[in-house]
């Protein structure tokens, strides 16, 4: 235990060391760092701010309060699970990127001021893009660049907001804010891009599914959850977030349902789960904010679990497309089981993690009287089997057997998935484990007769609908396809405008050149006519005629002189 040192430093140092270590040493380090970090975190004195004085700014690298602690703790736990999941991987770049991403996220969740928050967040962002680039394909390269563009813009918004706030209030402290000045709006929008607000969301479903097998769950675990943390700290009770969250809970559902790439399905579904959390933050108050944070924690576990199980499928079969998969429960029974636990958790079946966290948000929304928003969330909660809970297991492991046979996932992956699945069940069965970590006192009881029965009714009848629609062939079949999203604007429309502009310019310059050429030709023709061999000025006139003219002239002059 080192006084005043944020545990993030362990991870970042580990990430920097990673390229120079033997792979076995690195593997041990990856598993040891989360444990060491957790010991460091809980050994810290809450009063210690880890303050640094840098270029005239007072930076607070440590703020140990309940809200930051929940996120820092779950980030440590999930980084252990993810390290276990990636243990078979020999690519040290990915390991380094993973450690730095985890370190950045942990550092940001403990940051006491906006500049420290920004710095750690950017470490996480720039490290995580390498998890996409590590795929080493042209597609991944493009997706990573687009990811960086969005994240860079978000970082810039956050930084400029922080600077504006400093000049307005003289303080960089990261605490509760109101949307009343350019500074806070700028910070809000920065968080918004990182949280994938509707219309700013597409980087998520665009980039994450292009990451490596072990990289995708890492990406999904840290960055967006950090945005939830930041919004919960900075803007809880902000009414605008309720509307944004409701739209965000519903809008990506449709995309998740019709998407073919199962990792992209999970990203749209992640986007939709973030909507639930935003509603909780927007409603504000102890129950709602607790619910949002609880849902962020459970989401890290079950979304990670689902992405890990699809990743295992991808590792073994080389594809995550619904149109290539099916019937894999025969080859990968353990992965199937873990995926089902993740699916049951995200669907919020009683005894699974999602039930105890999503229920809080729904209850708080109903209590606050936002009935339309409640209805939107219920709609998302009813549809979840169709766009994630049943879809992922059905298309990957059951459904039409396309004859793909492969090995079960490697042992380390199974252990990681088993650990995540165990935690999902543990939280679902014994919610006080989760509730005890939350920043506010919880008086919410998940397991009431009413809550269990109504939730089971909702899910069972939705399952009935799923079975009916699949059997009747109405449920959208798996087709090799992509679906247009807002990325169309910058991947098709903008390049098309660019190409059109280029053509127009070529046209224009061509026209100008032709016009110039014509003018020149006309000019030369005129010159030729005057000065050319047959031109007026070049005509040779015989000497006698000239003499005669001279004589006439002289005679004229003579006559004029005497007259």
């Amino acid at each position, binding site marked *: 235990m080192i006084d005043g040192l944020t545990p993030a430093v362990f991870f970042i140092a580990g990430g920097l060391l990673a390229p120079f270590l033997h792979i076995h040493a690195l593997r041990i380090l990856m598993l040891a760092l989360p444990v060491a970090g957790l010991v460091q975190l809980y050994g810290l004195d809450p009063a210690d701010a880890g303050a640094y004085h840098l270029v005239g700014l007072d930076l607070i690298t440590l703020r140990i309060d309940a809200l930051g602690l929940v996120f820092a703790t779950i980030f440590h736990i999930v980084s252990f699970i993810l390290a276990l999941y990636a243990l078979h991987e020999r690519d040290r770049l990915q390991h380094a990127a993973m450690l730095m991403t985890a370190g950045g996220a942990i550092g940001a969740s403990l940051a006491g001021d906006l500049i420290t928050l920004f710095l750690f967040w950017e470490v996480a962002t720039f490290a995580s893009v390498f998890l996409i680039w590590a795929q080493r394909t042209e597609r991944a390269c493009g997706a990573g660049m687009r990811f960086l563009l969005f994240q860079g813009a978000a970082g810039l918004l956050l930084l400029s907001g922080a600077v504006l706030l400093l000049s307005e209030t003289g303080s960089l402290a990261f605490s509760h804010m109101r949307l009343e000045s350019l500074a806070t709006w700028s910070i809000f929008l920065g968080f918004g891009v990182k949280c994938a607000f509707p219309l700013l969301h597409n980087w998520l479903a665009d980039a994450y599914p292009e990451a490596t097998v072990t990289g995708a769950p890492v990406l999904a675990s840290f960055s967006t959850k950090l945005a939830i943390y930041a919004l919960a700290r900075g803007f809880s009770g902000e009414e605008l977030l309720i509307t944004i969250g409701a739209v965000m809970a519903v809008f990506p559902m449709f995309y998740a349902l019709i998407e073919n790439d199962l990792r992209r399905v999970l990203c749209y579904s992640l986007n939709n789960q973030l909507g639930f959390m935003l509603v909780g933050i927007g409603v504000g108050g102890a129950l709602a904010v607790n619910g949002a944070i609880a849902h962020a924690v459970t989401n890290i576990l079950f979304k990670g679990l689902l992405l890990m199980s699809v990743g295992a499928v991808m590792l073994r079969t080389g594809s995550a497309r619904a149109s290539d998969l099916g019937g894999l429960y025969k080859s990968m029974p353990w992965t199937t089981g873990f995926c089902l636990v993740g699916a049951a958790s995200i669907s919020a079946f009683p005894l699974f993690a999602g039930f105890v966290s999503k229920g809080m948000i729904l209850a708080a929304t109903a209590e606050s009287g936002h009935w339309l928003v409640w209805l939107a969330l219920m709609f998302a909660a009813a549809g979840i089997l169709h766009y994630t809970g049943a879809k992922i297991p059905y298309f990957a492991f059951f459904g039409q057997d396309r004859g793909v046979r492969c090995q079960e996932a490697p042992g380390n992956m199974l252990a990681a998935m088993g650990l995540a699945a165990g935690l999902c069940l543990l939280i679902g069965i014994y919610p006080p484990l989760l509730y005890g970590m939350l920043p506010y006192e919880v008086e919410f009881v998940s397991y009431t007769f009413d809550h269990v029965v109504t939730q*089971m*009714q909702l899910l*069972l009848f939705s399952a*009935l*609908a799923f079975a009916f629609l699949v059997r009747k062939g109405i449920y*959208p079949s798996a087709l090799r396809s*992509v679906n*247009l999203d807002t990325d169309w604007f910058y991947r098709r429309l903008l390049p098309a405008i660019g190409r059109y502009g280029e053509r127009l310019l070529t046209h224009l310059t061509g026209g100008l050149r032709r016009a110039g050429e014509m003018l020149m030709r006309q000019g030369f023709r005129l010159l030729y006519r005057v000065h050319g061999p047959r031109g007026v000025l070049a005509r040779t006139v015989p000497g006698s005629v000239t003499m005669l003219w001279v004589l006439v002239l002289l005679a004229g002059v003579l006559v004029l002189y005497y007259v």
Partner: protein
Amino acid sequence: MTEENKAGLEGEAYWLDDPANFDRMMYALYALCAVFLLLDLLMEHDRLFGFYAWFGLIASIGFVLAAKVLRLLLMRPEDYYD
């Protein structure tokens, strides 16, 4: 190891491959739906009877149908951006 398990390992006959077993699972689902619908009677509330059940059924069917329409508009070939 029983005969059935051995066949399973060889990838020939799986429990779910038998349509009769699949039907059994469906009957179990119908039974569960009925049980939880009837449990509604034990609750004191002023909602419509089985509100959550009907909501789950209708909302999810409506959702899938709406998404199918959306798919007509949004779906493109896989190499659209390449």
